[in-house]
């Protein structure tokens, strides 16, 4: 049986995918913007950092301090990168969904 820690929560899943999609440009503001523009989901800054903190503790992402810009009031960015464990976890979650979805029809 898989450990509870190895499961991806819904928010963890979409944040991880957003970081993966943004590649080298993944930091708080861009992750939030991508989620709003692509799936119309607005998550708060607090919820985002709580999620990335959890993902980092699970070893699914790493983070590093970035540059500060005038647009940000001189405050630094924190860039996120998906680790190989994170990639593995995403693939596994995708496969799980595909297995469950195959042959299932949604009517209504």
């Amino acid at each position, binding site marked *: 049986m898989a450990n509870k820690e190895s499961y991806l929560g819904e928010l963890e899943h979409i944040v991880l995918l957003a970081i993966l999609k943004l590649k080298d440009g993944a*930091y*708080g*503001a861009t992750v*939030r913007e991508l989620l709003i523009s692509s799936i119309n989901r607005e998550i*708060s*800054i*607090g*919820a985002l*950092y*709580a999620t990335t*903190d959890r993902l980092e503790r699970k070893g699914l992402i790493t983070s590093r301090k970035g540059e*500060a810009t005038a*647009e*940000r*009031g001189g*405050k*630094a*960015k*924190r860039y996120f990168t998906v680790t190989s464990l994170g990639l593995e976890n995403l693939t596994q979650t995708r496969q799980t969904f595909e297995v469950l979805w195959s042959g299932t029809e949604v009517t209504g």
Partner: protein
Amino acid sequence: MNMLNLIAVVLLKLAAPSDYRDEAIGDLNQAYNKKRLSGSEFSASLYSFKVAIVSSIHFSLFRFKRVKLKEQTIVNLLTGFWLIIFAFFTLFMQWLSNLNFTNKFDVAALNRIVAGQFNLVVTEGEFWQAVGNNITQGKGILCLTDANAAIISLLTLLGAVLVLKFTQSKLTALTSVSILLLLPFIAGTVFLNLNANDMTLDNVGSILTPMLLSTFYSSIAFIGLSLIKNKRTHYA
């Protein structure tokens, strides 16, 4: 930056944990500037304020969960709390053992304590003034020693150990031990209330001292024993 946005930044600064503070404020500033360029300054500030409020709630929950994860933090908080109680108790016992029956405040305060109005005494400035004087003139830590209280505590602890040995339900055991630890205090309070009219202020101290100290001794001993037991279970 207008007032509403400034409040939003301050709110986020207070709520965000130190390791994410700069990044969170930076993200908020970036979102605010982007909204400002595409719309009005007012709508940008309103958006920024809304984001700060929701984020503050999330950050607070996040911080609470983090604290809950750190067992050591809880132990440190409890130790700090216990030290404050211990310091207060020592000062109170010092004041009690240096009572001056010719002093109007001391007599009135003792009467109030016997009448169960302990809270009214400790909120008075005169009480703390007397406590301050006693720090330099009192008996020091020796005021926390009493032979009668030690005997009562030993009996209480013996009772607690027997209860824990023969009780199956954790809730029943916990309730019984709590009552047992407080028993000398409860018994003393009942006794003082029943005999308030017959007692002189001189002999109230002989009831108050063991009643307070035995509960104090038993609690410390019980906490100590529990910690030792937990440590043994942990390392077994």
